[in-house]
């Protein structure tokens, strides 16, 4: 008894720390469970199916009614009959203004607000996991989803294109031709670039998600921010604002399809994406770290 009485609170704390498993800095388990949650949801399956349907529709439509030669029409459509890889590029270009951002907004907007809305956030926070780590895992999962959805669209596009139109040499925007292997690499590069752009948008979604307990509000807010950015970017009278817009350099992925590759445009886009990601991720951290979680 006397021994127990002599125990100081500090000694108890150190005792407890020795007994409990030390929280690891990098444990894939939390991230994996988050990914299982995202990729296991039926609504997300439905969203991914819609994303994958677009390249299928494009490929089939072009197969049945090939565009007459001499260009025109939406970007990259004229090249589809020459090379199946253009199905992927056409699909990415078509989905970039709305579908891809919508998918990323749905996931990132749901990240915190979704848990708060279903009342699971406070239980999540009772586990010995730091809030910063929770936020980092949520953001990482949203980024993985962004890359996955971009690769899904491109992958289905390449597959449909190869089945219906075949591969072969690819004509770049500069009118030069490159081999099929390099063409696939360039399409992968486009996916990586667009994935990074969407990650910067996911940071905006994460911040919006930390502001509210209504996931739908965070999603709509993120979409409004993105679409407004696209709209403002098309008004020439406010060109002083354009360099500060989230989506200003998204279409720069075309610089990967020039010969030689225009790294100036790509670098500008990557820096812009990094700036947005840093600002909004730290804003989400500031908001979430100091937030009173009541639900």
């Amino acid at each position, binding site marked *: 008894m006397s021994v127990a009485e002599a125990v100081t609170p500090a000694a108890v704390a150190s005792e407890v720390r020795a007994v409990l498993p030390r929280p690891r800095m990098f444990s894939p388990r939390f991230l994996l469970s988050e990914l299982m949650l995202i990729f296991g949801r039926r609504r997300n399956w439905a969203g991914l199916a819609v994303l994958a349907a677009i390249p299928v529709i494009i490929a089939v439509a072009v197969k049945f009614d090939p565009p007459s030669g001499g*260009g025109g029409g939406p970007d990259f459509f004229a090249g589809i009959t020459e090379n199946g890889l253009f199905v992927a590029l056409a699909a990415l270009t078509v989905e970039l203004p709305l579908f891809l951002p919508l998918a990323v907004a749905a996931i990132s907007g749901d990240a915190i607000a979704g848990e708060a809305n279903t009342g699971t956030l406070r239980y999540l926070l009772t586990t010995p996991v730091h809030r910063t780590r929770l936020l980092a895992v949520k953001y990482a999962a949203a980024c993985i989803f962004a890359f996955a959805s971009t690769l899904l669209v491109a992958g289905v596009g390449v597959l449909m294109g190869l089945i219906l139109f075949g591969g072969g040499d690819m*004509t770049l925007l*500069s009118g030069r031709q490159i081999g099929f292997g390099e063409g696939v690499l360039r399409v992968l590069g486009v996916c990586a670039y667009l994935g990074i752009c969407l990650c910067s948008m996911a940071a905006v979604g994460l911040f919006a998600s930390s502001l509210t307990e209504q996931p739908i509000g965070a999603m709509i807010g993120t979409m409004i921010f993105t679409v407004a950015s696209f709209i403002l970017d098309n008004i020439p009278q406010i060109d002083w604002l354009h360099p500060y817009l989230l989506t200003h350099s998204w279409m720069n992925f075309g610089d990967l399809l020039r010969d030689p590759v225009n790294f100036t445009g790509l670098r500008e886009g990557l820096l812009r994406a990094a700036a947005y990601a*840093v600002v909004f991720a730290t*804003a989400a951290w*500031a908001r979430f770290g100091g937030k009173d979680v009541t639900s």
Partner: protein
Amino acid sequence: MTENRPKWLRWLVPAAAIVATTAGAAALTTAGADAAPRLPARTAAQLLVDLQTARVDGLSGMVAQRADLGLPSLPGLTGGGSSSDLSSLVAGTHTLRVWYSGPGSARVALLGTLGESDFITNGRDVWVWNSRDNTAVHSVRPEGTAPARKPDLTSVPKTPQEAADAALAAIDPTTVVTTAGPTKVAGRSAYELLLAPRDKASRIGQVTIAIDAERHVPLRVRVFARGAAEPAVEVAFTQVSFNRPGAEQFAFNPPPGAKVTDESAADLQKKADSAAKDLTAKDQAGKAGGEPVVLGDGWTSVLAAKLPAPTKDDQAAPPKDGQPNTIRPNTAAPKGPLGTANLLGLVGRLPAVSGSWGSGHLLTGALFSVLLTDDGRVFAGAVDPDRLYAAAADPKASAAALSAPAGK
């Protein structure tokens, strides 16, 4: 909350992130622009000689081109940065990539969003590629002639070299030539040559040419309207390297599936001739119009011509080029050749003016004015409208324009 720090302290982190990213972006965009380099003084004459004797084996770089001619907003022309169409260069901001390796090897690529136009000369072969239309125009230069100017390139200069040549051609006793302090363009030290018209009636206030201190190549050309702080036309390198680009930059084989148009040397010569005519004769409209007359000289010269009367064979030889006529009917209008009737309809929408010389319509841009009188005369020049009215009122000038051979 167990934390004893105030919550608002956390917001300093995103605030610092905003400050850091904007400061970083500002540092990247204005890198080296603020620090004026120290260079030994050089007179205007020395700079002119430098320019003329500049020998460049090869260069490559990025060029930003900006034109704000103060024209009314024109559908199809004011495409801004998104258009890769060469004719869109008269308005908005554009990015070009340039490769040069001797007179026979040059490539200019106009970058648009998901599009590109390339202009390539390789030996005697000249290619114009347009990714949006998937077309390639091939022509072979006749032997022994200077590179022909492609007619479909607009008269707005595309490279600093080209622009400087055009500006230097205008140097004569009508021009004040001075120099400005050293400056930095594309991270390189440069001298700046200032050309200003002596005649205050000119709409052009100043032309500045930044010349590389080491290589004597024009790096930036700006054209200012009189009294304007912002240039109306600016062509500047944003990146430049004097390493000779490889031969592969100048090779071009049209990709399969592209529409290839072959122009024979004779065709090209004919087109170049007619383009040259169009450039000097802004309102040359085939056989029906009078030969244009240039009144005065230097910066304030006024071009006088007679518009062709509307005839049945309107469609033949629509006027091309020349600033006033680059205005196309609205997109809603049928896409046909710009006949005289169409042109007159368009003229009716310009502000009406009248004076002792009669009445007509006036088009004014930042750098030029054009007067179209109701009796079918046209006066154009880089001058204020008053100068055009004076020309219109001058019976000698009018007589010259009106009595010009009808060409039939």
